[in-house]
């Protein structure tokens, strides 16, 4: 009897194991392919929407990755602005304006995005899992990693972050705020510099079915 029950349990494990292990391995191997040695410069185009806006706004520029949690966001168009992030410290520099300085923790949308981005580039799965619940999905167009914040305060502000990519390249990071209808879609790399950025966005930023 005992051996019968045991073998049934074993069956269950062997049935489930491949799926779990497969997804886990997959996440590890995905993260491994995404690792980039700093410094790295990646072009971006960002699509903003808000309940206050009747159409989306687009800014573009470069993201400079200098190491874990060290990142600069340089806006080139339609105006010049530079944001330096070092750990939790954020400084926004804009021509003829005083420096705006604040902590990432007070801007969870940005914080989540950057933790995610920098953890992806450094392949730090532990850092990612400390902050987020991870889920990986595969589709015909590539892969999709969803990051759901663990921290209640962050969760009150951001509904979630979705990273879509193909092969070893992340293509788009979408951040959805809990309220105010704010979403930010960040198109990365070649897709960002494509003249038809909106088209690229439609292709790469939508959630996988």
């Amino acid at each position: 009897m005992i051996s019968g029950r045991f073998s049934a349990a074993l069956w269950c494990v062997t049935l489930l194991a491949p799926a779990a292990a497969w997804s886990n391995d997959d996440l590890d191997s995905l993260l491994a392919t995404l690792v980039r040695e700093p410094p790295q410069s990646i072009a971006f185009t960002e699509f903003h929407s808000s309940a206050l806006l009747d159409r989306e706004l687009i800014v573009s520029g470069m993201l400079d990755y200098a190491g874990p949690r060290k990142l600069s966001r340089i806006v080139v168009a339609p105006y010049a602005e530079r944001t330096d992030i070092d750990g939790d410290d954020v400084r926004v520099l804009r021509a003829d304006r005083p420096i705006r300085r604040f902590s990432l923790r007070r801007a969870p949308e940005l914080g989540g995005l950057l933790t995610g981005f920098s953890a992806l580039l450094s392949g730090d799965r532990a850092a990612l899992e400390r902050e987020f619940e991870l889920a990986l999905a595969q589709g015909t167009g590539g892969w999709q990693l969803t990051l759901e914040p663990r921290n209640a305060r962050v969760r009150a502000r951001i509904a979630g972050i979705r990273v879509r990519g193909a092969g070893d390249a992340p293509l788009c990071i979408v951040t959805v705020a809990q309220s105010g209808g704010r979403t930010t879609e960040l198109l990365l790399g070649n897709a960002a510099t494509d003249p038809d950025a909106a088209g690229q966005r439609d292709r790469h930023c939508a959630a996988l079915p």
Partner: protein
Amino acid sequence: MTGANRAAGWFVVWLLALALLYAHVATHLRLSGDLRLFLPEPTTPEQGLVLEGIGEGPASRLLLIALTGADQTTLAEASHSLIEGLRDHPSFRGIHNGATTTIPEVVTRYRYLLSPAMDQRPLDATTLRAALNDRLQDLLSPAAPLIEPLMASDPTLEVLSIAESWAPFRSPQIIDDAWFDTAGERALLVAQTRAAGFDPDGQQQAFSALESEFRKLAAGTGMRMIVTGPGRFSALMKERTQREATWLGSIATAGLLLLLFVAYRKPRILILAALPLASAALAGLACVSLLYGEVHGITLAFGFTLIGVAQDYPIHLFSHQHRGLDPFANARKLWPTLATGVASTCIAYLAFLTSGVTGLAQLAWFTIAGLAVAGLTTRYLLPRVAGGEFDDTAEARYLDRIETVLTLPALRPLAYAIAAGACLAAIFLARGAFWENDLGALTPVPRELLAEDAALRRELGAPDARYLAVITAESAERALERLEAAAPGLDRLVAEGAVAGVDHAARYLPSMAKQRQRQSSLPDAAALAESLKRAQQDLPYRADAFAPFLAEVARARELAPLEAGGAGDDAMPDLLQGLLHERAGGWAALVAFSGVKNAGRLDEWAATAGGGTVVIDLKRESAMLVIRQRSRILACLAIAALLLVGVVRLSLGSTLRAVRVLAPMLLSTLAVLAVLRVAGQALDLFHLISLVLAAGLGLDYALFFERAGADRKERLRTLHGVLVCALSTLLVFALLSLSSIPVLRSIGTTVALGVFFNFLLALSLPRAERKHAAA
């Protein structure tokens, strides 16, 4: 047997009477902590303001708080949580760390009437267009999450410009939405307590609230909190005074009991000796309770020190008691001398009754009532309970030896004159200031904490609590209007660098006239909607994105202007309360200055600012108060000295005897002054009180020695009594002189020195008498 029974009966009656008195005092007397009871009545409006300023002024209620010992993010989080935890705490009027979230609802509601930016630009299409363009960039920047929630109802960010204009004089840097010092190592906060600066109990409550809230946040982080400010200092002063007084008092009591036991070898005497002192303390308290209803903590502390003299009375009685002498007869014999001592000491304290200082008058009543009761109980009650055996102190062999050692060459008048001359020369030729005019010099606050306070004050640009301008007007509204008129002149002072910053009520609450003027310049609903529509043209905002803004402006047009002293939802933040207040016959608005570099320019500004504007140098004014108070007390002491000479002359019945008794006391007083001056001590009020105490003690010694005359046994008994008195007093005050608290130290040193000199000089008396008698 019956004698012993009767003594026991009287003992019980005495204890019962003390218990009743205690019950009365305990139920009727309130303890006050207001230090202003010890400051003189003001005579000029400026002095009135100084006193108001000391206890009530904006600077006196400020606690400066620094959090340190963790990374910036943790410190900032703790700073925000501290505010969150204490927001509605009854001990605080407000607590601020520069965060935008601490803006009260009333300010948001009244923003279009309060914002100084409204004077610079109308709410028209051009203004709105510029604002909407700026907001667009904000929306696209990483700061968007912070600004977007405000935008729909406040596209011009009026609330933020109010917050900026309310920031302290020189705004500290903001990290994580919280103030930090220049080095970025300490998160800074400013709290305004509800309790006045000089209410140590209220301040202690506020501090405890801060501390318990902080402890919750700091658990396991290694974070530290530093709190400074006048209120913190007064609580600290009280705590330290109490602590030191307690341990010094315990040692002194133990020493005293040991001394009495060694001197009399009878435990019974220890209890009996305490009865007149206990009666004195309770009678003193009852007297103050009857006259004032409340007593200041300082009166209590000093009062108990001063009536310690009463301990001497039973000692004299016991030292003269011996076999075959009826205690009653003994008391009767000693009474003329004892009564002269009591009366003259009381006369000296009468001087303080006329000082015009409530605390000192309380002290005087307390001491006079206490000493009188101690004298009377020693005369009439103590002999009734002091039955039983007494050793004759004159038979103690050690006394002989002591007498041999202590026999000093008698001082002749010439020697007195030379010694007095030397003392006077030392007193007047010694370097350094004669009088201490700075109240602050008496502070027992540790030097490091004072340095912290100065550093935090610099970082926060908090007012430096020395210079203050006062504008008086018949109403709060007029006061605010006058402040608004004075504002350009004040701004010039800042621009010139004469001062680092100014603070006044009109920065927070514009006059109603100004509010109405801003209100009337607000466009009506149709005009604003039209302007907004034009401003939004071609911008990617939704057409109805700013509907809340239109509604808010429409509401602002209907608001009744905010008034100083408004209550409930319309109450202005408490920031205002220290800066604008009602006083007899009108309102006073204070202008606080920080970083004053050129005080002369302040006076020039006041001259041009119009009638009723005065600039007050709190340091100078408080020094003048101290000087005036002292000269009054000195004059009273001079009168008391004359009275005292009269009483002694009358009691002794001979001018020669009076001179002989008074001379040692006078020379001792000069000698104490000389020592203090040579040691570089500037004299203050507490030295004066202590000198009077020492002189009273010295007079007692001299009176008793003088009385003893030529009889050897009587002289030995007197020597015993005076020796025990002097040693016990010396013990208590030498301990006080070890205190770390300046006030206690100056009392201890002065009295200990006084007792030492008085005892030595009084010793020269018996021989002089003997010689006199032999001649």
